[in-house]
């Protein structure tokens, strides 16, 4: 089981802030493909990965990062703090 978190417009588009999933995806990218195949709202949110960032266990990482053993994966747009 892995926690998947969504923030900002990704959260709004997918319609929830967090869910728990059973997945066999090896990388973040595989997880994106799995979710996109599941429902249109995921496919819509993940349509342009260049407009997205991801974190594995709260570390900003590239999309080809392994999620093996990870507790938490998060998807969000580029940060706009400060």
């Amino acid at each position, binding site marked *: 089981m892995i926690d998947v978190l969504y923030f900002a417009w990704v959260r709004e588009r997918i319609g929830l802030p967090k869910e728990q999933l059973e997945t066999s995806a090896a990388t973040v990218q595989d997880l994106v493909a799995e979710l996109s195949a599941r429902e249109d709202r995921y496919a819509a949110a993940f349509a342009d990965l260049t407009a997205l960032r991801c*974190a594995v266990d709260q570390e900003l990482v590239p999309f080809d990062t392994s999620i093996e053993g990870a507790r938490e994966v*998060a998807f969000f747009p580029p940060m706009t703090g400060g």
Partner: protein
Amino acid sequence: MDIRVQDVAFDAGQMLNEFTARQDNAGAVVSFTGIVRDVAGGLSSMEIEHYPGMTERALEKIAQDAMARWNLADVLIIHRHGSLEPKDIIMMVATASKHRADAFAAADFLMDFLKSRAPFWKKERTGDSVDWVASKSEDEDALKRW
């Protein structure tokens, strides 16, 4: 190092004074304060979302990177989340060092990395529309300076 992520407002002047008073032998303190700007069209409010847990980790890493890179006595970062209004203070950073060059460079560095590497997202309410603030390519480009 003092890092705070909070929804309540804070007094930047008081934070600056407390930070300065804590320093033992600093000759220079630089602060940056970010303020909600009233955008054209009339901003009525701003909402700041963040990623609890990751936010604190990211800010700590940025602060540690600054401490490793410059000769700093101390670093302060305060960032609000939740609902803000025009003229509200969003965040501040402060740096203390013996000499001014370190404090200036480190504060500039902290802001660049905080902007693009700490998980905060701003949403602006202007009249009837509510929009997520888009990231700027110049903010990402600014990281290459370091």
